[in-house]
């Protein structure tokens, strides 16, 4: 069990650590600001588990300006482009990469691999609002 769960959690922890690092970098322009919310966009093919992300987020944000903030994970479904019929469609299952309109196998992924920090919501300190 450990061999399955161990590396997987390790994975989310390293991803969340990258998120925290990037958010802290982006706070340079807003001295004294506190983070309220971090919004991620994660494709269904990105191999990250939201529960694990949430769990790791609590640990990784301790003693940072992100402490106590919310993590919002927006999961994007996988969309493929079909070379047979030309349509873009959402696949019906991650175990079957086919055009959901005509049923042909489709390997041209148009959405679903994303791993992005979309936006953050911050609370600015009054004194930092300067020209």
């Amino acid at each position, binding site marked *: 069990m450990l061999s399955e769960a161990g590396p997987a959690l390790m*994975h989310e922890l390293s991803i969340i650590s990258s998120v925290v690092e990037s958010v802290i970098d982006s706070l340079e322009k807003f001295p004294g600001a506190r983070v309220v919310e971090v919004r991620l966009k994660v494709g269904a093919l990105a191999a990250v588990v939201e529960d694990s992300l949430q769990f790791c987020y609590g640990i990784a944000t301790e003693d940072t300006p992100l402490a106590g903030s919310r993590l919002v994970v927006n999961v994007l479904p996988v969309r493929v482009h079909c070379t047979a019929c030309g349509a873009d469609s959402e696949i019906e299952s991650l175990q079957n990469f086919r055009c959901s309109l005509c049923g042909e196998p489709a390997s041209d992924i148009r959405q679903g691999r994303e*791993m992005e920090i979309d936006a953050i919501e911050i609370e*600015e300190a009054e004194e930092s609002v300067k020209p």
Partner: protein
Amino acid sequence: MTTRIVELRQGILKKNDELARGLRERFTSSGVLVLNLVSSPGTGKTAFLERTLRLLRERGSRVAALVGDLETDNDARRLAASGAPVRQINTHGICHLEAEMVGKHLEGWDGVDLGQLDYLFIENVGNLVCPSSYDLGERIRVALLSVTEGEDKPLKYPTLFNSADAAVITKMDIAEAVGFEREAAVRNIRAIRPNIRIFETSAKSGSGMEDWLAYLAEEQATRRS
């Protein structure tokens, strides 16, 4: 107190992606074909790679390998028996290789000059989840699956198999003994990644290795042109 939304719209693994892009440019300009080998622990990546290195060397190709493991340099020592330059990357607990580790281990590697290599193989840490997110600058990602693992493994790990450019089935010499259902395995791989090239190999008997080497030569030739 005022709150505001700051749009970032940046990749979470931006740092790794940028380093990987740099490596890819370097590999391309050096003319070396770089492959990233990914599988579960115990699939036989090392045995498969050892045979590949040996055969390529016999045919006069210039090859080298980087091998990732959590701990120990056992695999590097096994691979070095092929006569090719091999360097171990110990990740000390990290479950995958990252572009930065690859970049660092290319520095000061005695006797290895990228410009003088035909092939560089990177054997990733045995793991079917995390390596799929980390680009190493490779040109070809190879997913390996052994006949003992169950034909439905590609369905359980779609992310990795979907990100692969080629699939290798290993330990074909014991396929019959373990009741391996070849058709089901091929069907499952293709359900996740239609049209992917699949090689059925045995590092022990050498079966299927000719097809694999022909594919490598083909890819290397496209690389140079």
